[in-house]
C-alpha cells in the first residue's frame, strides 16, 4: 500500500514534468549506455583474442634457445637446440603428447611464373597436431619422408591460392628457394590471427629444411603439446631438467633456453582483458557519475518545488524517514528507469559498432554484451539514485513543517 502510493506519486510527479524528467534521466541513459557498450567492446575484444590464442591450444609449450630475461625480453641468441633434443624430450619427459622441432624462414616459393613470399616451416608430421592444424586436401607427410629428407610440402590455403589460383595444387611441383618440392597436401583454413596468417605458410620435413634449404644444424624451436590434465608446469619442469642435463649446464648456469607456456599467455591475455574492461568500464562510469550529479540537481529542484507538499505531509504525521524514503524512492525510480533505457542504448550501440566498423572497411570486430555487465550497470544506476538522491531527500526530511507550509 505504502509502496504503491509512493510509486504512484513518484511516477505522476515524473510525468508532470516530462521534458525535465527526460533531461535528468538522459545523463543516466548515456552513462549506463556508455558502460554497457564499453564493457561489450572490452568483452568482445577479449573473447576474440582468447579465441585466437586458444586456437593454438592451451596445452602448447614452445621451447626456444636463449635465456628468458626479465620482463620476457629474450637475451642471448645462441642456437643450442638440436633435433636430438627434440627426440629426447619426446622419449623421456612425462606428460608430453607430441613434440615438433621447428626451423623456419621466409622464402620465395615459385610455381611457373607465380611467386609468393611465404614463411616456410621445417617440421615433423606431429606439428599439425601440436599447432592444431588439419589437412584439407591431400595428406600430411610421414615420419619416413622426414627420415629420407623427402622433398614434399604441405601448404596453407592462402599460399595455394596465391600460387595456383583456382587450380588443384596437390601433385604439382613448386620451387622452394630453387629446389623442387611436390605439393602433397593443403591445410584447412584457420583464419587470420592478426599478427600472423597461419593460412599463408608452407610445411616441409624438418630434415630437408635443415640440410637442403636453410643449411643449419640447430632448430629454432621445439613445440610441445602436453597431455590433457597433466599440468603444464610439470612438463615445463621436466623439459627444463632434461635440457639442462643434455646441454651440460652447471648448477649456477642460467638456462640456455626458455619455455613459453601457452596457458600463461592465455592467463596474461585474460588479465589484459580484465584491465581493459576496468579501463573502458571506468570511462563509462565517469559519464554515469556526471549523470548522477544531474539527478541530484533535479531532485533538489523537485524538493524545493514540493516544499508545501512536504509541509502538509509532515503536518498530517509523516516522520522524517517517511519523507526521506519518498524522495529516495523517486530518485531510484528515475535512475532505474534511466538504467533500463541505458541498457537498451548500450546494447544497441554494441550491435551498431561492429556494423559501423565493417562499413568502414575494417576486418571483423566483435562486441559481446554480457549479462553481468547489464546487471552491474542496472545495480550501479540504482546505487547512483540512492547516493545522489540521499542528500536532497534528507534535506526534504529535515524541513520545518511551519516554514514548509508557509512556502509559496
Amino acid at each position: 500500500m505504502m509502496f504503491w502510493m509512493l510509486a504512484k506519486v513518484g511516477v505522476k510527479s515524473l510525468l508532470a514534468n516530462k521534458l525535465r524528467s527526460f533531461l535528468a534521466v538522459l545523463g543516466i541513459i548515456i552513462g549506463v549506455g556508455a558502460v554497457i557498450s564499453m564493457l561489450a567492446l572490452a568483452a568482445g575484444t577479449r573473447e576474440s583474442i582468447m579465441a585466437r590464442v586458444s586456437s593454438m591450444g592451451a596445452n602448447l609449450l614452445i621451447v626456444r634457445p636463449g635465456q628468458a630475461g626479465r620482463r620476457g625480453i629474450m637475451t642471448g641468441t645462441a642456437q643450442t637446440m638440436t633435433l636430438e633434443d627434440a627426440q629426447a624430450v619426446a622419449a623421456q619427459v612425462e606428460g608430453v603428447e607430441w613434440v615438433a622441432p621447428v626451423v623456419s624462414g621466409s622464402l620465395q616459393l615459385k610455381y611457373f611464373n607465380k611467386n609468393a613470399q611465404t614463411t616456410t616451416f621445417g617440421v615433423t608430421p606431429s606439428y599439425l597436431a601440436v599447432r592444431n592444424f588439419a589437412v584439407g586436401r591431400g595428406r600430411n607427410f610421414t615420419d619416413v619422408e622426414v627420415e629420407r629428407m623427402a622433398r614434399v610440402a604441405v601448404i596453407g590455403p592462402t599460399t595455394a591460392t596465391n600460387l595456383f589460383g583456382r587450380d588443384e595444387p596437390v601433385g604439382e611441383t613448386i620451387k622452394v628457394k630453387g629446389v623442387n618440392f611436390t605439393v602433397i597436401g593443403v591445410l584447412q583454413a584457420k583464419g587470420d590471427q592478426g599478427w600472423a596468417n597461419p593460412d599463408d605458410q608452407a610445411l616441409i620435413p624438418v630434415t630437408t629444411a635443415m640440410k637442403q634449404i636453410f643449411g643449419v644444424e640447430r632448430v629454432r624451436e621445439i613445440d610441445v603439446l602436453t597431455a590433457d590434465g597433466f599440468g603444464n608446469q610439470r612438463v615445463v619442469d621436466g623439459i627444463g631438467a632434461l635440457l639442462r642435463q643434455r646441454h651440460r649446464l652447471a648448477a649456477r648456469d642460467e638456462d640456455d633456453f626458455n619455455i613459453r607456456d601457452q596457458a600463461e599467455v592465455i592467463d596474461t591475455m585474460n588479465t589484459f582483458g580484465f584491465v581493459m574492461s576496468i579501463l573502458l568500464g571506468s570511462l563509462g562510469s565517469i559519464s554515469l557519475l556526471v549523470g548522477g550529479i544531474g539527478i541530484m540537481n533535479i531532485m533538489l529542484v523537485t524538493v524545493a518545488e514540493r516544499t508545501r507538499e512536504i509541509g502538509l505531509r509532515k503536518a498530517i504525521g509523516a516522520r522524517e524517514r517517511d519523507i526521506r524514503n519518498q524522495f529516495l524512492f523517486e530518485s531510484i525510480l528515475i535512475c532505474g528507469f534511466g538504467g533500463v533505457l541505458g541498457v537498451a542504448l548500450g546494447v544497441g550501440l554494441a550491435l551498431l559498432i561492429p556494423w559501423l566498423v565493417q562499413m568502414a572497411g575494417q576486418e571483423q570486430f566483435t562486441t559481446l554484451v554480457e549479462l553481468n555487465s547489464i546487471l552491474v550497470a542496472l545495480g550501479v544506476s540504482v546505487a547512483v539514485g540512492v547516493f545522489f538522491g540521499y542528500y536532497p531527500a534528507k534535506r526534504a526530511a529535515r524541513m520545518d513543517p511551519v516554514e514548509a507550509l508557509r512556502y509559496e
Partner: protein
Amino acid sequence: MPAPVIDARQLRKTYRIGDQEIRALDGVDVLVEEGEMAAITGASGSGKSTLMQVLGCLDRPDSGEYFLDGEEVAKLAGDRLAQIRNRKIGFVFQGFHLLPRLSALENVELPLMYAGIRDPRPLAEEALARVGLADRMNNESNQLSGGQRQRVAVARALVGKPSLVLADEPTGNLDSKTGAEILALFNSLNAEGKTIVIVTHDPEVAKFGRRRIHMSDGGVVPADRIARTDSARFAGAEAAK
C-alpha cells in the same frame, strides 16, 4: 470528567528578527474542553498564528506546559511530534493543501497511511461521505471546486478520528457562500461531539465559535475586554445578528 482536549499554561515563544525580540506568545493560557468549538482570533502579528502552530504541535513553545488530550507534548520534537499530529490532530488549512495528481480518496487516505493502517480505503470513503463528497471520491483535486477541495481537506482532518480539529482560516480562500457551507459543516461536526478550534481574523467566522480566545500582543485578552479591544466591524456584525 475527561481531561480537557487543550490544556496549555504559560506558553512562551520569542522570535528574534535582527536585534529585535518579538514575544509572539507571552504567557498564554488556553483551555478547551472536549466537544467545544472555540475560535482563536486576533489581528495579524497578535501571536495568533504562533499559538495555532504550538497548539497544532507544528512547533514547540520556548517554555510552558501543554497537555493535549491529557498527554504532555510541549517538550516533544521531530518524529514524536509528527506522531502526535497524526493521532490527535486534524488540520484544515486556508490553502486546502491537497496533493495534486492524487484523487480525493487518496488524499484522505494519506494520514492513515502514515499511521500505518493497512486498509485505509473504507475509512477514507466514510470520511468523504460524511462531508458530502461520496460521488466525487475519484476526482483529482484539480477537478474539484474550492468548496469541494476544502471538504476533502475536512475529510482528511476527520479520517484519523483525532481529538482535535484545528482549522486555520478555513474560509480564507473561499467565497462567502461556500465559506458559510464549510462553517455549517464544522457546526454539524461539533454537534456530533467533535472538538474544533478555528483560527481566524474574520469576525464573521469567529462568531461560529461558542467561545472566543482573542489574541493581542502575544497574550490572550480576557473575555470581558474583547468588546472594547475588538474592531467596530465585529461589534457591528454582532449587532446585526
